[in-house]
């Protein structure tokens, strides 16, 4: 744990729009709405904001934290220390305050018992939640929700969040239930008025309205991934509940009846089916993909372990299917409600025998939307499983992100051929490489041509799908599949670069996925310290040629990721082996989102070790 009390805020000016609030509650106490109102209001005030839910694998009664980071600079990744703590949970009260630097702020429910020797370097604001509740007429079952609304009002008043901003957030949040909105707002107002009349501002943190963030939205990656899949024309999704992937499919369930009505018949064009286990989830998805439907499933690490045999079948029978893995911490059941990037290597070679796969790695919420539709195109174009690797942080936490962009190309069904098209082929075979790019033409069930059918099998087969144990045939088939994946590379999402403003840059930093915000902040902090670095975020495997160029053009490339063994670094070392000496792995484990502080310190430590550059 960090020693937050040793951190000191610079200067003595007000600190405007740069702070981190952690709301400490008991899970199941109905704080989610209150948290939501607070960070959404900050977003409406034009301040880049993220909301991370640090929650236990439990439904009711254990500590849970909601961390809001507001940053005018746009640094919305996780921060190691808090600036403001909202204490509503006795069990963690004392410990929660340890994360505050000198001058940090504590809003606490005044029925909590203070530690025997409270820190004297903090600023305290008592919140008489119970007293205020007594004066309000609230139905018993809504008490907990309303207690939380009180802290929203108190904290907002002290930070300078205008009451009308809260009002507009609450009425839009409960847009379909105006009476609920009214009762919630009246509690927020009670808290606000109490603070205005009773609390004297002693801390340095202020909220100031900025121009509205009109190009941005606030949502989570699972919602984006689910919506992206629906916009990608997914027709079949079989699944089995697992944290943290469940909400991706639930987002689809929520929207499918609105979004996927056939304009011609008024009927539905997408089936979402919960099945008995992950074996069935992938089996049904492969069956649907084989049948000519755009098909997907979503799961997390343990689900992937169960799905592996079927992935191998889909790979070798060349059946399109999209598999989302919203990663959590493994091995085993691990930390089901915490985040990691530990499944990358497993996915790249998933399955027994000679397998390798295409992996898409979204790093922003809006990319989750984009890769949602793109993955379905790629699966059908290359007739193979496509993995989309998200993680709990990206999938379940709230991020400010660019508005979703409508797909800029029509749906690609790949090389499906029906009766008439089949007639044009003199000698069609399901696995025949007619175009020389490794990608065959495929027929699907329902095709009424007597020439269309073939027997799909996971055993050795020739160009016509017939059983074969012939060694030459086997190697020809495997090499063609490999070729297909290489042909795919230019069509996969290319890496994105954020170059330093300096001209001579020796250091590159490389990341993937949800560490995007932390690594941008890392780059900014290092630049302020006089250490210019270029940043590259990898968005797909197999690697794009631009990845090689980036690594080649820097003396040292730090690969920062959330797993023990530096899986991305290892893959890069293998694929770009001539520059393996230029790659240095920095790994962060523990289940929490990466912080810029950790990344900066790790890089500086390594630079010192290398004896080449210090600070």
């Amino acid at each position, binding site marked *: 744990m960090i020693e937050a009390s040793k951190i000191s805020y610079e200067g003595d000016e007000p600190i405007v729009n740069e702070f981190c609030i952690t709301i400490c509650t008991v899970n199941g106490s109905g704080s989610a709405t209150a948290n939501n109102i607070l960070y959404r209001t900050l977003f409406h005030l034009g301040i880049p904001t993220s909301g991370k839910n640090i929650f236990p694998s439990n439904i009711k009664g254990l500590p849970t934290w909601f961390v809001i980071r507001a940053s005018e600079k746009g640094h919305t990744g996780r921060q190691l220390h808090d600036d403001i703590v909202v204490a509503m949970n006795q069990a963690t009260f004392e410990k929660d305050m340890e994360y505050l630097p000198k001058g940090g702020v504590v809003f606490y429910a005044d029925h909590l018992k203070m530690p025997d020797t409270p820190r004297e370097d903090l600023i305290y604001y008592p919140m008489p939640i119970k007293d205020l509740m007594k004066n309000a007429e609230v139905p018993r079952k809504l008490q907990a929700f309303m207690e939380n609304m009180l802290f929203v009002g108190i904290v907002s008043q002290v930070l300078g969040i205008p009451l009308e901003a809260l009002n507009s957030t609450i009425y839009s949040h409960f847009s379909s239930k105006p009476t609920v909105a009214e009762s919630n707002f009246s509690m927020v107002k009670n808290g606000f008025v109490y603070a205005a009349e009773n609390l004297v501002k002693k801390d340095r943190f202020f909220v100031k309205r900025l121009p509205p963030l009109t190009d*941005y939205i606030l949502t989570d990656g699972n919602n984006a991934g689910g919506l992206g899949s629906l916009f990608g024309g997914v027709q079949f999704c079989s699944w089995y509940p697992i944290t943290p992937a469940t909400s991706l499919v639930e987002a689809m369930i929520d929207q499918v009846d609105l*979004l996927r009505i056939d304009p011609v*018949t008024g009927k539905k064009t997408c089936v979402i089916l919960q099945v008995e286990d992950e074996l*069935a989830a992938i*089996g049904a998805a492969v*069956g649907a993909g084989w049948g*000519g439907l755009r098909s997907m499933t979503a799961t997390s690490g343990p689900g992937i372990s169960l799905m592996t045999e079927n992935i191998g079948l889909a790979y070798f029978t060349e059946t399109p299917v999209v598999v989302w893995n919203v990663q959590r911490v493994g091995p085993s059941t691990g930390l089901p409600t915490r985040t990691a990037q530990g499944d990358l290597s497993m996915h790249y070679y998933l399955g027994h025998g000679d397998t390798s796969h295409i992996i898409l790695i979204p790093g922003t919420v809006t990319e989750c939307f984009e890769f949602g539709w793109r993955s379905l195109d790629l699966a059908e174009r290359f007739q193979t499983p496509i993995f989309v690797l998200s993680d709990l942080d990206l999938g379940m936490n709230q991020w400010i992100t660019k508005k979703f962009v409508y797909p800029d190309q029509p749906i690609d069904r790949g090389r499906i051929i029906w009766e008439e098209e089949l007639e044009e082929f003199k000698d069609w075979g399901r696995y025949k490489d007619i175009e020389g790019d490794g990608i065959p033409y495929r027929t699907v*069930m329902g095709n009424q041509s007597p020439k269309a*059918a073939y027997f799909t099998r996971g055993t050795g087969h020739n160009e016509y799908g017939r059983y074969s144990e012939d060694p030459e045939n086997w190697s020809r088939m495997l090499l063609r599949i490999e070729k297909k994946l290489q042909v795919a590379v230019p069509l996969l999402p290319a890496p994105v670069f954020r170059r330093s403003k300096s001209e001579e840059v020796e250091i590159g930093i490389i990341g993937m996925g949800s560490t995007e915000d932390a690594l941008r902040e890392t780059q900014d902090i290092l630049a302020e310290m006089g250490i210019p670095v270029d940043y590259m975020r990898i968005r797909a495997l197999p690697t794009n040629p631009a990845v090689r160029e980036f690594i080649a053009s820097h003396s040292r490339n730090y690969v920062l990721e959330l797993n023990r063994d530096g899986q991305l670094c290892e893959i890069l070392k293998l694929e770009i082996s001539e520059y393996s000496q230029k790659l240095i792995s920095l790994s962060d484990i523990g289940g929490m989102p990466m912080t810029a502080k950790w990344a900066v310190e790790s890089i500086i430590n390594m630079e010192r070790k290398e004896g080449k550059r210090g600070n």
Partner: protein
Amino acid sequence: METEARTVDLNLCGLALGDYKGAPSTLCPGCGHNAISAQVQNAVWELGLPPERYVKISGIGCSSKSPNYFLNRSFGFNGLHGRMPTLATGACFADASIHILGFSGDGDTASIGMGHFKHVIRRNVPMTYIIENNGCYGLTKGQFSATSDLGLVLKHQGVNMLPPLDMCMEALISGATFVARAYSGDAKQLKELIKAAISQRGIAIIDVISPCVTFNNKDDALQSYTWGRDNEAPLHDFKHFSNKEDLDAADFEPGTYREIKMQDGTYMVLKKIEKDYDPTDRSAALDLLTESYKNKYFATGLIYFSEATATIQELYDLPEEPLNRISSDRLRPTKNMLTEINRSLY
């Protein structure tokens, strides 16, 4: 040409039995499964739809290899051990006009795939599910399966110490609305049961006792040819008719038979043999299976039938046109819908 006598029978859609054939079987000569393959070919041909209207899906094992040996012109998918029902679950949404024939064995269904077997019934996936049950593992050379009889002795295994599962009982208590047991040595009955199974709305289960000539065919073994020949006790003389005209033409003696109209308009005819048995009585079916399990009474025929409620396919409000033929432009929501979503997330 017109004067040339027709030497080949053609079915309703003008195809010969040969149009429904498959590759030559590579199973052991005399394998019970080959007899099943032949009757699937016959049944599908007699029903008169082209082979393109069917798909064959199977798991792993000798049984699951068999779909290669019939219906060449039907798409087939020889998938993973035990997972056949899951492939069928996904595939059934692709084109509702295509009938799924599922093939599995006792290893595939009663052991590794038991969970899927139960759930595919629970979902009422529209398909014919044939278990080619030989009471042993053939392709791995003679191990006990979950349907091997208690006390069965196999060459490298010793004595089976565990009681068998009854797949008809498992199907029945899982809610199947068409449950039959057949014997691959009784071709006539098997063919008629397959025709009826295909006509059922939703899932139809046929547990076919099918001898493994190589590993489990000793005279006293419950799945042997000898045992089957000597002990098979058909519950009734069973026939399936595609329409009323054919049924009337059969000219059964009034009062000697019972006809059951299926939901697709075809008919099953049950002629009493010895006892009265009512396959529409679920309690009677449970009693029959309990009795036959206890006393090794090899009852075959239609064990249970009832009209089925909606299939999983019908529970979704899908277009009549096959989902896999819907044009891409009908699958993508509009730009306005996305604008609305973006607005709602601000």
